[in-house]
């Protein structure tokens, strides 16, 4: 006999429901905790890299400096505090600005990483007397922590205080652009063919199966493939953005194909029949009606694919994009490096100042990735429609 009053069996069921809810909530909290830990750790590590110690110094552009004895440009007492890497750029600077020859100039110059670390309160190998000097200069306001613009305007360097992410960012842009122009058209066309035109036979099914499997292949394999095909066979220069872009395009292609197919599949057949019914050709029905409707979905998937490619390191290491590249590439055939690879290189450096920059690099990468994903979500929201 059914009874609508609560029985013990029903109460047991409610308790089970309640427990299940608690487990789920715990799982979410656990994941959230990890995320919070990860971000706060990165923030605290990466934050200091946004600041850089600078010293006010009197620069003397003399003949000696132009001849290469750049340390002579500043007063002997300040020399141990100033970045050698920065001083080293002076002869070149004088070559470009000969009118400065013989003049003097009061400048805020980049301090050495030892000074930087000392000022930030980290352990530093700065000598005691230099520490005293720094303390004195600080009280006089002639040494300070300023915003580290160099992090964004300079390329990699063997000296952490003048190492920046610029060449990596430029490299990333090149690579991403190439990935996009190779992977998107090819992927979308492939999807259109498979979804709209391909007959349903064994050959096509084999292709579909392969594309789906391709998306699951470890990314390093694409690096090996890129090395074998693009570099060894077609002779694309090693380490170049072209090699990296092509390799990542291979990797992104299946993602684009799969998401574009899903987007096309989501367009109801009535749209196609409506267009065909008024005498549009199959191509017109796709180009004028189906594709515009599918585009937001396709873009969403593609952006996520590109974001994935952007964070990829393994295949790029294989095609040589992990090299020490201090200068931004000037073209797609120049040696280039990318942000994740730069992060990887810096992470391997023992100096504390590099650790800071590693975290800062990760923050930049994350910010870009998050904004790409936000863009994808925004696109999806904006174009959501009913039919």
């Amino acid at each position, binding site marked *: 006999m059914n009874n609508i009053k609560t029985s013990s069996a029903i109460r047991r069921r409610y308790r089970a429901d309640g427990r299940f809810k608690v487990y789920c909530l715990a799982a979410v909290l656990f994941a959230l905790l990890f995320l919070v830990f990860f971000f706060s750790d990165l923030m605290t590590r990466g934050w200091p890299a946004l600041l850089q110690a600078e010293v006010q110094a009197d620069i003397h552009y003399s003949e000696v400096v132009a001849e290469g004895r750049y340390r002579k440009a500043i007063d002997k007492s300040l020399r141990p505090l100033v970045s050698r890497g920065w001083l080293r750029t002076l002869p070149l600077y004088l070559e470009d600005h000969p009118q400065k020859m013989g003049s003097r100039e009061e400048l805020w110059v980049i301090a050495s990483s030892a000074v930087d670390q000392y000022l930030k309160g980290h352990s530093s190998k700065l000598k005691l007397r230099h520490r005293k000097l720094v303390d004195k200069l600080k009280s006089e306001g002639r040494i300070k922590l300023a915003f580290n613009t160099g992090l964004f305007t300079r390329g990699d360097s063997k000296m952490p205080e003048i190492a920046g992410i610029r060449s990596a960012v430029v490299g990333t842009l090149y690579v991403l652009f190439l990935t996009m122009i190779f992977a998107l058209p090819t992927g979308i066309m492939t999807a259109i063919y498979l979804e709209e035109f391909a*007959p*349903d036979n064994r050959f096509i099914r084999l292709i579909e199966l392969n594309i789906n499997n391709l998306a699951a292949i470890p990314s390093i394999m694409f690096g090996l493939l890129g090395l074998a095909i693009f570099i060894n066979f077609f002779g694309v220069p090693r380490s170049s953005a072209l090699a990296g872009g092509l390799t990542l395009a291979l990797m992104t292609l299946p993602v684009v194909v799969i998401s574009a197919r899903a987007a096309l599949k989501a367009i*109801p057949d*009535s*749209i*196609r*029949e*409506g*267009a*065909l*019914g*008024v*005498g*549009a*050709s199959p191509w*017109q029905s796709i180009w*004028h*009606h189906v594709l515009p*409707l599918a585009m937001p979905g396709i873009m969403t998937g593609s952006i996520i694919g590109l974001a994935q490619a952007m964070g990829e390191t393994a295949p790029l290491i294989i095609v040589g994009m992990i090299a020490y590249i201090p200068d931004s590439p000037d073209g797609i055939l120049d040696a280039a490096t990318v942000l994740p690879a730069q992060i990887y290189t810096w992470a391997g450096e023992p100096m504390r100042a590099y650790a800071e920059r590693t975290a800062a690099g990760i923050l930049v990468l994350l910010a870009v990735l998050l904004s790409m994903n936000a863009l994808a979500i925004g696109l999806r929201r904006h174009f959501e*429609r*009913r*039919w």
Partner: protein
Amino acid sequence: MNEASSAEPVSSADAMIGIDGLRLWYGDHEVLHGVSLGIRERHVTAFIGPSGCGKSTLLRCVNRMNDRIQGCRLEGSVMLDGTDIYAPDVDVVQLRTRVGMVFQKPNPFPKTIYENIAYAPRIHGIARNGVAMDELVENCLHRAGLWEEVKDKLQQPGTALSGGQQQRLCIARTIAVRPEVILMDEPCSALDPIATAKIEELIDELKNEFTIVIVTHNMQQAARVSDYTAFFYLGDLIEYADTSTIFTAPNKTQTEDYITGRFG
């Protein structure tokens, strides 16, 4: 040939569309077992019959919409004004401009009302943008009895209209191509009685200009709008005659059972 269909209500001289011995398979499944009938120009012909008997399939043979379906194959012929539309030199796209189609579920393009009408004339070069196109759009909407309702919101999306309005928009879109034949597959099945009445009125008007073939499950509708009615059962044409004959004095007991609601 099927014995029942030999009682031709439309002589082949009068027929605009001549279907002869049409057999059709989806894969191994034979759906039409040799259907023959003639459809008369500027008249309304209704296809009735229980669900799954092949009405839609037959209708879609007339503008070759079935070409899209994998594994669909047919035998026999469908003639439009004396040309076999399945002949190899027939251009399907061209054919569909002569044989328009209105679907069961209203399917306006998710574009503006104006653009819904203007799209086809533009791709066929019937009218360029500008005054000529404006006139064409207005004219088609008038003829579809929709103008008064939408004249102030031509730039609004067609999908924002009511179901009945959407269906009339689809009819307007179809006549904008100036077809000779309009195929309608249960055009009112998604509509309420008032919207249905409007469409039926419209069909009555349109038959002065177009040859109309309509599939319907609604016996009253078939009786109201059509001049000829064909009754199908399990892929066979059972009876084809004047609508009044079918509904008042059917030859076959199957037909009678169906229209009186005793089965199907």
